[in-house]
């Protein structure tokens, strides 16, 4: 029934008042003045007037052109199903392990929104103790290498995993001789997998071989390399071992080394380091005393040292060697005396791969009583970082040549590129009927293989490592494999066939029950590793332990006493006679590894190519180093006065010829040259291919080991010149106190040695008085209560960020440079732009050589400027002392850059930081001109778009892969703006926010800059200067601190600590 009820809107309706009835039909109660705005126009509103037409036209043109100006659309795709551990904007950290056959490092991988963007050292590791070097830092960019293999290949055609597995399975089943060639494997589970494989195919032999071999060291030490502790040695003698950046375990050693080198208020002692070497290595540059020898004299130095030590400790002496320079034997005697004085607390190491040299060195250490659990060499704890055997490799090559090898599986090696030409691997390789390469990229070896099985990048993979007895670490994936057959979760087919764990290949081919490496790894650990901790508990206990290990990354326990292998070692007298027979004469070449490129396996990484070599400061190139004096005699270009045209030379030895530019290297022994390994790649990728030439071809095969010293090299000048892109072209301080240093002796006498307060005469009324320039200031210090002066102002409120740089600890390794690159999205600019002096690094490491002429000396000799005094001071000494000085924005409290910017794009924060406001910057570059430290970097081009940079940096590729490495917390700067070190402001803000949320103040060490964090020697200390307990505040009280260019009164927040050399300055000029 319809509702009969009637509702009224009001009394008016009920009473039906006339006014209501009248208004009822109207929509609006009040009259709407429609006529007023329509009628009065007096024209038809539908017609468009001329003016309107012009308006519309103008609007549409403007709108159309505005629409055309729209910024490019950048895709941001939200998760469809968000992984629960990922919170946008929050970092996730995964503990993992880096080992590429060269560097071992326990690391933490920082991921943002599922992408690894940064690598940092894991402080929980007992081996690397939180340190990481440039190569490890760079590895995150190698993950996003767009030239990585995306799926297996048969011949040179793409194939599926099923096909590959089937074909390889058939080949293996046929029998015949199978060989597995790998670099050192520190993964115990992988070792086990290979052992399983060998069990299945009994004709299999596993050959371990390292690109840069340590075979001689291993053989000399009864088949096992002992553990070294550089921090337990008061006197360190290195015979051509660059243990700070390349030898054996450089990350670990540099950390240990720094421990012995640091001085401070409570520690006035430091270790003494004597280096005998031909080329200038980073270790040699850090040595207190550096003695130039010829490469062929490494053994002779060892014997000389042995004899001198034996004379004092009562050992039998060997036949005395002769030296090219009488000073060497004199120096050896002095060194021996120092070693004997610190008997039991010294260490002698040699870089040679000659067993004989290593045997002698071992005997020296024995005479010096350096072996022991708490001494500098612990032979009870084995080091597994280098297991390669040159003999095995040579045998493999001869087998291959003889056609005895039917299947060759190569994993993590590239012998076609980096084995000595003398052995002829490349020819032998062609003779193997079935070659299987497990590789990440189609390198020189893989491109000749019949089957290529692409492996995961280490960041996508599981893994484990056992670098030392009792020390284990785990590797876990930080990202789902970039190239995989199926996208995770959605289960959708991707366009890639995908990569897989190298281990899974062996598991599959040997028909393992657990073809999944992750399961295998867990089972292996459950069975073999974790029980060693004494817990035999069930699955529950295991999972608990496993998770704990996974989150800390490492598992360490007491090493059980090791069973020595009784390998046939060379006797001392044999060694001496072999050393006496070392080929010598002519020009001798040293083939060495560079700090950045190393053995060349990460050569395609633009961060490493652009990292200036710590010594030569050259980027993007391979060259021959030679003594400048010798070059002058020969008429080669000396690269003086900003001239970068290097002469080109042809280097030939034993039928191999290389044509390279020649770089004048102060400190290089006369009659020697140095050539870096790792260049001349042809299959590395577009970044590295064609840079330099391959020096591995020159490696010699002597005494069943690879020798990296080559005698009787001919060097002839070739036509033309070649430009070398170095970031530093002047190498001395030219009498300016930029880097302050002193000797230990002086330092012990008074802590401010080398850093004495400068006084200037000030007229007070009619009399003159000497005052510290810090106290002489034209201006009133409105903020003088803040610790702009080097005093500790505990009473101050708030934060005042300070950075201390200990020049004594800085070894110049460049880890901070790469770390800063990764953290702050610093663009790579390529060789041409480095030649234009436009590198973008926010932190640089200045390297200075001493000059024969000092300011004092010039004064004594009565020299004046017109005597070309400064030109002479610009030239380095023949065997110079070297010092490193990291320089980044000094964050001046009286910043010259801030006052000159017309638009206030750079300003000062209350916390002491000099800030750059990119949005506001118009790019007058006045700030950069006015910066006395020249740390400001201008975006000359649009580095992330300009086509000029596509070839040098894959991170700028349009396929978006390289961009995944960018840190989303730091904006990518556009062209035309100035940029510079921000003291990692994003990290500071993050730390402050976290502290604020937790309602507390920031703890010291909680916020750290990327450079300070990555410094393996902790030379950089960052913190709040207003917190009296902070490490940096304590350093502010140290007498060694000084401000760079303090007389300009810029009052930086970054300060330096005087370098102390444990030498008497006159040693070198003797």
């Amino acid at each position, binding site marked *: 029934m319809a509702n009969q009820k009637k509702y009224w809107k009001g009394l008016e309706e009920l009473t039906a008042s006339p006014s209501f009835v009248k208004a009822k039909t109207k929509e609006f109660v009040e009259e709407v003045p429609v006529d007023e705005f329509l009628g009065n126009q007096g024209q038809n509103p539908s017609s468009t007037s001329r003016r309107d037409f012009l308006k519309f036209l103008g609007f549409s043109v403007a709108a159309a052109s505005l629409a055309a100006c729209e910024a490019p659309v950048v895709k941001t795709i939200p998760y469809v199903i968000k992984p629960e551990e990922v919170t946008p904007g929050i970092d996730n950290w995964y503990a993992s392990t880096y080992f590429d056959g060269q560097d071992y490092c326990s690391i933490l991988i920082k991921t943002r929104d599922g992408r690894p963007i940064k690598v940092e050292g894991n402080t929980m590791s007992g081996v690397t103790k939180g340190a990481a070097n440039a190569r490890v830092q760079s590895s995150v960019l190698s993950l996003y290498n767009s030239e990585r293999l995306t799926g297996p290949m048969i011949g040179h055609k793409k194939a599926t995993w099923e096909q590959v597995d089937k074909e390889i399975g058939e080949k293996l089943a046929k029998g015949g001789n199978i060989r597995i060639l790998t670099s050192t494997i520190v993964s115990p589970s992988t070792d086990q997998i290979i052992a399983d494989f060998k069990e299945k195919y009994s004709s299999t032999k596993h050959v371990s071989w390292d690109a840069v071999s340590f075979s001689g060291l291993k053989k000399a030490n009864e088949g096992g390399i002992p553990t070294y502790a550089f921090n337990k040695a008061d006197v360190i003698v290195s015979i051509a071992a660059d243990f700070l950046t390349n030898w054996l375990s450089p990350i670990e050693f540099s950390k240990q080394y720094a421990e012995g080198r640091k001085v401070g208020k409570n520690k006035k002692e430091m270790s003494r380091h004597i280096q005998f070497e031909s080329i200038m290595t980073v270790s040699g540059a850090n040595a207190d005393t550096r003695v130039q020898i010829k490469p062929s004299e490494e053994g002779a130095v060892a014997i000389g040292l042995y004899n001198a030590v034996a004379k004092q400790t009562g050992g039998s002496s060997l036949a005395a060697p002769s030296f090219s320079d009488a000073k060497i034997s004199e120096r050896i005697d002095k060194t021996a005396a120092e070693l004997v004085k610190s008997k039991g607390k010294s260490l002698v190491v040699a870089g040679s791969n000659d067993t004989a040299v290593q045997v002698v060195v071992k005997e020296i250490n024995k005479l010096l009583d350096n072996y022991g659990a708490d001494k500098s060499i612990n032979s009870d704890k084995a080091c597994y970082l280098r297991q390669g055997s040159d003999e095995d490799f040579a045998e493999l090559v001869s087998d291959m040549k003889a056609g005895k090898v039917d299947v060759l599986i190569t994993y993590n090696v590239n012998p076609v590129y980096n084995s000595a030409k003398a052995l002829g691997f490349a020819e032998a390789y062609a003779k193997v009927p079935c070659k299987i390469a497990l590789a990440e990229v189609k390198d020189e070896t893989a491109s000749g293989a019949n089957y290529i099985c692409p492996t995961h990048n280490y960041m996508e993979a599981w893994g484990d490592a056992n670098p030392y007895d009792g020390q284990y670490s785990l590797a876990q994936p930080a990202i789902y494999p970039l190239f995989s057959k199926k996208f995770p979760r959605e289960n959708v087919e991707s366009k890639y066939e995908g990569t897989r764990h190298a281990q899974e290949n062996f598991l599959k081919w040997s028909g393992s029950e657990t073809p999944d490496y992750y399961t295998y790894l867990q089972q292996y650990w459950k069975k073999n590793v974790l029980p060693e901790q004494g817990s035999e508990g069930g699955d529950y206990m295991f999972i608990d332990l496993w998770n704990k290990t996974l989150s800390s990354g490492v598992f360490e326990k007491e090493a059980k006493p090791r069973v020595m292998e009784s390998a046939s070692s060379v006797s001392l007298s044999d060694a001496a006679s072999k050393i006496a027979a070392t080929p010598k004469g002519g020009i001798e070449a040293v083939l060495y590894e560079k700090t950045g490129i190393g053995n060349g396996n990460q050569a395609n990484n633009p961060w490493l190519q652009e990292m200036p070599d710590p010594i030569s400061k050259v980027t993007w190139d391979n060259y021959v180093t030679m003594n400048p004096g010798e070059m002058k005699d020969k008429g080669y270009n000396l690269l003086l006065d*900003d001239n970068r045209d290097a002469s080109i030379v042809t280097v030939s030895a034993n039928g191999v010829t290389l044509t390279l530019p020649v770089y004048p290297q102060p400190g290089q022994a006369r009659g020697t040259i140095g050539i870096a390994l790792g260049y001349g790649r042809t299959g590395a990728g577009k970044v590295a291919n064609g840079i330099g030439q391959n020096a591995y071809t020159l490696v010699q095969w002597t005494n069943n080991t690879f020798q990296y010293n080559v005698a009787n090299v001919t060097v002839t000048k070739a036509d033309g010149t070649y430009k070398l892109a170095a970031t530093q072209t002047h190498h001395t301080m030219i009498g300016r106190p930029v880097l302050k240093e002193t000797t230990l002796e002086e330092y012990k006498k008074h802590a401010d040695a080398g850093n004495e307060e400068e006084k200037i005469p000030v007229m007070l009324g009619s009399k003159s008085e000497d005052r510290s320039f810090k106290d002489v200031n034209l201006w009133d210090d409105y903020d003088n209560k803040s610790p702009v002066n080097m005093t500790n102002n505990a009473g101050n409120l708030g934060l005042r960020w300070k950075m201390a740089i200990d020049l004594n600890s800085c070894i110049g390794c460049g880890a901070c440079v790469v770390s800063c690159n990764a953290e702050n999205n610093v663009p790579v600019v390529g060789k041409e732009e480095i030649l234009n002096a436009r590198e973008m690094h926010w932190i640089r490491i200045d390297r200075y050589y001493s000059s024969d002429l000092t300011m004092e000396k010039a004064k004594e000799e009565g020299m004046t400027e017109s005597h070309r005094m400064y030109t002479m001071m610009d030239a380095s000494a023949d065997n110079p002392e070297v010092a490193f000085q990291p320089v980044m924005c000094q964050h001046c409290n009286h910043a010259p850059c801030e006052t000159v910017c*017309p*638009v*206030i794009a750079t300003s000062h924060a209350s916390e002491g930081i000099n800030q750059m406001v990119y949005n506001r910057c*118009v*790019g007058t570059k006045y700030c*950069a001109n006015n910066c006395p430290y020249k740390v400001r970097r201008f975006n000359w081009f649009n580095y992330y778009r300009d086509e000029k940079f596509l070839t040098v940096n894959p991170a700028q590729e349009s396929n978006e892969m390289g961009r995944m490495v960018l840190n989303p917390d730091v904006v990518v700067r556009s*062209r035309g703006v100035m940029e510079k070190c921000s003291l990692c402001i994003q990290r500071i803000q993050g730390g402050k926010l976290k502290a604020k949320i937790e309602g507390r103040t920031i703890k010291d060490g909680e916020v750290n800059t990327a450079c300070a964090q990555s410094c393996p020697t902790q030379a950089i200390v960052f913190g709040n200067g207003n917190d009296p307990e902070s490490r940096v505040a304590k350093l502010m009280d140290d007498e060694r601190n000084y401000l760079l260019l303090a007389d300009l009164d810029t009052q930086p927040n970054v300060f330096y600590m005087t370098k102390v050399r444990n030498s008497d300055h006159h040693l070198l000029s003797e």
Partner: protein
Amino acid sequence: MQHDSIIRDPLLLGKKTYHQITEDVARPVEGKANNYWWLMLAFAVVAWMWGIGCMSYTVGRGIGTWGLNRTIDWGWDITNFVWWIGIGHAGTLISAVLCLFRQRWRLTINRSAEAMTIFAVMCAAIFPVLHMGRPWLAYFVFPLPNQFGSLWVNFNSPLLWDVFAISTYFSVSVVFWYLGLIPDFAMIRDRAKIAGRKISYACYRVLSFGWSGRAKDWQRFEEVSLVLAGICTPLVFSVHSIVSSDFATGVVRGWHSTVYPPYFVAGAIFSGMAMVLTLVIVGRKVLNLEEYITIQHIDTMNKVMLTMGSVVGIAYFAEFFMAWFSGDPNESFIYLSWNNAIGPYGWAFWVLIICNNLLPQILWSKRIRTNLYITFVMSIVINIGMWFERFDIIVTDLYRDYIPSDWTYYSPTWVEVGIFVGTIGMFFTFFLIFARVFPFIAQAELKTTLKATGDLFHNPPRKLKANGQASEGYEVKQPAH
């Protein structure tokens, strides 16, 4: 008709009458240009267009197309900027300072000198904009109200002072120059009307602002001229002092020097005078104005140049001496120091010394001062020298900075050179057009130097007829303009 001074040479040769001046000044404007003019214009326009191409390339790609680097962030750009600004100075000096000092010889050259000022400032203004990394945001340097709260320009920055100094200088110069042009435009307007050239009449009618030549007009004209001359005079000194502050307030040693403001002003007048000479030596020949711009003018300008060159020379010496006397290892590498003289930029050092100090010494000789050819060459030499002065100050002070590891070298790229060539092209394009469209000589003011009475109008001296210069259309009752 003229009362010639007994002891001074006449300002004008040829015993000009009012009408003759009118004819001579109007001739280039009313006549047709010759082929030389067209040829020069073609060269100038091509150079200008080339410069525009280089500028577009810079804006499109970035300053990476130049040769600058991390240590030397200013090069040809700011060198050219300071050089052009400096050139502008002589114009203002001649028209304003010499006006206040009642130097009547200025009257024949002040118009072209002022035009030179304006065009030079226009050329100069290109560089500060173009040297910006993001020139499209150049308006950030103006204190514009904005929505960002307290976002404001930095009044501490000498670059901002530049913005104010140059924009003030430019606008005052334009007004002063234009003001002087009004009666001359009116003269051409009137002649166009008489001759029935309609387009010309329409244009000059607008340009002459309705000038009627009444006594009141003249009175106001004189007053405003005097006021503007008064305003311009401090600007002559302020602009280049402020430009010098770009350097003097910096912490870069070599820049950080208190002598800079006076030294820069002297240098600016030095180079500006040289540029005026370059222009008028050509202009008087091309426009047949030898009787207006006489050897006496050239001589006088040479004297000014010699004086200013000596001031600059003393400043150089002071800089060189202080670099040595300070004993500071940083100071001993400044642009005027022994180490620069023998360093990689030694050639630039010697170009500066030779062009600015040694060669100008020949101007002590009157024979050389009155020799047109040598003067012309000298004026170009001095302009080169003054360009190198700025180049040396900027580049050779930066390239040997405080920290030796930063030391680099700088060479310009074709883009930078192209932009400079472009500004020269633009300058000459404007100047050539100016010479044909605007009265080259401030004839109205110049006529005030003629000491004439009505009697002389009725009885023109015979001399006039004798030299054959007298126009046939000469009429006694001709209006004065």
